[in-house]
């Protein structure tokens, strides 16, 4: 299937791998970058897109999204998820298998890959369950699942309670150099909790767990990673104490990476006032000091990646008392505009933010190095980092609209997204 060459003109070319930031054009032929430079000649029969000075960068890779298809298609289908992703500038996303049934046999992985290819929007990087039925007992077939296309193993928001199971999972995963995703909440301490313990939860009368429940789990998982030499990825990280622990673990040479989600750098626990269930998250929103520490960890690279933690939930799951509501918010289309806030505040450079959104997640998931160099796959995002935007839930493409950011003023918008050189999203004029 041949596609005419595409020339993107007058862009600000941001290559987080090369660390270059310069004006220029990019020519795409056969899904790959064929040339970059200034005033490139326009080849015969090519399509041109005038970027008008907007930023062109490798497409975002979101390593934390929650799947709802199959099983809960009323919340999100694979189609609505990939549509929302490209509208958010995301060209590839890891999908945690929170589906019914879960993704735990090679056929389901292959089927997910096949369906997402047919949709032709964002690339879907399937994660398989780490244990059968995500029950935390019996390991899944890491090797066969990996051969079928699984890029990581995760039991979702369920922390693995049994240390022996996680130890064996980490050790066995070394056979295939596979990465395991764990969730940073001690399950005993956080049982029934829906807020961070402290004055705020006390005033609201909400069952709460101490922020230390995160550090407790992170420390245990780090010890097991050290013991086994296995590859561990923890997230979303939400507390300063956990950032410290991971910083120390990395210094010791433990094979650990981590991510935080955009909500945790944007909101603190005060957002749960009025019991708005769109601010109920797992882990819950933290104190302002933790939010600041997480931003600092993201800036210095202790936190490798920034994710959306996209979690579609419908009204039946959210129009409930705070205690009873499901946690989670959608985030594919708010990842970039909200992620840019620390750039505008001077906390992190635009280039470093792009590394957290492209290079780092690609490395964690074993994907090709995102780059604008000649020969690189043309998965690209064109965006204006400065344009003021008021976020609107109703125009978001996700089937569920559970976002606390409806009406939220932000800065930065995605103008166009290309996957394999094809224009898969263009912002409506």
């Amino acid at each position: 299937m041949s596609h005419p060459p595409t020339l993107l003109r007058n862009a600000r070319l941001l290559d987080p791998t090369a660390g270059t930031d310069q004006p220029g054009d990019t020519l795409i032929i056969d899904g790959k970058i064929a040339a970059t430079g200034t005033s490139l000649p326009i080849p015969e029969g090519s399509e041109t897109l005038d970027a008008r000075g907007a930023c062109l960068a490798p497409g975002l890779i979101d390593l934390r999204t929650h799947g709802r298809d199959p099983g809960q298609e009323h919340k999100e289908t694979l189609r609505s998820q990939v549509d929302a992703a490209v509208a958010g500038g995301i060209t590839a996303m890891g999908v945690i298998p929170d589906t019914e049934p879960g993704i735990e046999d090679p056929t389901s992985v292959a089927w997910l890959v096949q369906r997402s290819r047919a949709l032709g929007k964002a690339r879907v990087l399937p994660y398989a369950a780490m244990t059968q039925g995500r029950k935390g007992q019996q390991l899944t077939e890491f090797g066969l699942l990996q051969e079928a296309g699984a890029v990581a193993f995760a039991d979702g928001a369920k922390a693995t309670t049994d240390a022996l199971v996680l130890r064996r999972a980490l050790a066995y995963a070394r056979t295939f150099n596979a990465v395991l995703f764990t969730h940073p909440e001690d399950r005993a301490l956080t049982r029934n909790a829906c807020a961070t313990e402290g004055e705020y939860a006390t005033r609201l009368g909400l069952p709460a767990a101490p922020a230390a429940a995160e550090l407790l789990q992170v420390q245990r998982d780090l010890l097991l990673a050290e013991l086994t030499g296995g590859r561990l990825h923890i997230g979303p990280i939400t507390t300063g104490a956990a950032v410290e622990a991971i910083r120390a673990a990395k210094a010791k040479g433990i094979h650990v990476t981590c991510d935080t989600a955009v909500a945790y750098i944007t909101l603190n626990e005060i957002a749960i006032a009025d019991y708005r269930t769109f601010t109920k998250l797992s882990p819950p929103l933290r104190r302002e000091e933790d939010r600041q520490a997480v931003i600092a960890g993201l800036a210095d690279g202790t936190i490798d990646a920034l994710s959306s933690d996209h979690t579609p939930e419908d009204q039946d799951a959210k129009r409930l008392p705070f205690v009873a509501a499901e946690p989670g918010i959608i985030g594919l289309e708010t990842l970039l505009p909200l992620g840019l806030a620390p750039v505008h505040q001077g906390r992190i450079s635009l280039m470093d933010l792009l590394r957290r959104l492209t290079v780092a997640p690609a490395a964690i998931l074993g994907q090709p190095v995102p780059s604008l160099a000649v020969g690189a796959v043309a998965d690209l995002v064109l965006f204006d980092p400065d344009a003021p935007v008021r976020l609107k839930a109703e125009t978001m493409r996700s089937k569920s609209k559970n976002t606390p950011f409806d009406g939220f003023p932000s800065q930065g918008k995605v103008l166009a997204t290309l996957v394999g050189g094809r224009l898969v999203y263009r912002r409506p004029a």
Partner: protein
Amino acid sequence: MMYEFNHRHLLGIEGLNPLDLRYLLERAESYVALNRQTEKKIATLRGRTIINLFFENSTRTRTSFELAGKRLGADVINMSVASSSVKKGETLIDTAMTLNAMHVDVLVVRHGDSGAPHLLARKLNCAVINAGDGTHEHPTQALLDALTIRRRKGRLEGLVVAICGDIAHSRVARSNILLLNALGAEVRVVAPPTLLPAEIDRLNVRVFHSMREGLVDADIVMMLRLQTERMQGALIPSMREYFHFFGLDREKLAVAKPDAAVMHPGPMNRGVEIDSDLADDIDRSLINEQVEMGVAVRMACLDVLSERHVTAQKGSQA
């Protein structure tokens, strides 16, 4: 007393200022005498519909609201919604929409989840009174406690009030802490750390883990109910140990002021949090007065919020 009570709902003591609180107490005071007459019914709320929507069982609070509404001349309907623990939230919204269509004037709601009345208030056109939500607030209980104290002691300012027991799971404690602080009392909480919520000291209370220290020179000792289901999650080891260290008896009360009064929101666990004789001692116990003041306070709240409702409707038609 001319005063504009500027709240559409009564969802908690949080958000009310001292003037609002005094206004409600004054209004309640005016109903105490009425409730002691033979003829107890007036027509203030004639033609209004009040629904008591209770997702948790509560004979006394529901009866108190029912009497209050009926004595003001309103039509009062009780709805008890059996709550299956799984789907109770769904019932909540469904019920709210149904009630909305019936043109209810005041909805009195009790629910096992904190914030449930706030959710209802966002969906409904009528006034909502929180009759207890989860472990959050129980504003009419705090108001009736304040009225009871004020009538016994003549004031709230400067009084030392010790709230003892399961503070962590008590909506009564939260509402009382807020109200008593707003009206100038000194509030203490006395409980083992497992029954205290995190950072409770940030609510302007002094924290004690011993009755013998916490009750020193107290004017009021307010006991809370210890729910027996709390015996499960390792919060306290046994009933007898709890009563030994935190149950109120005459010996522990001896360090309080000689005229210290004892309160309890009911229903009591005699021999668990309070000694039975002490609870019945009319010189020390205000427990029956609390029940009496409850009706007056609820009449005041229903009355004031109904006025607001009419004002709001007239305003919207203009």
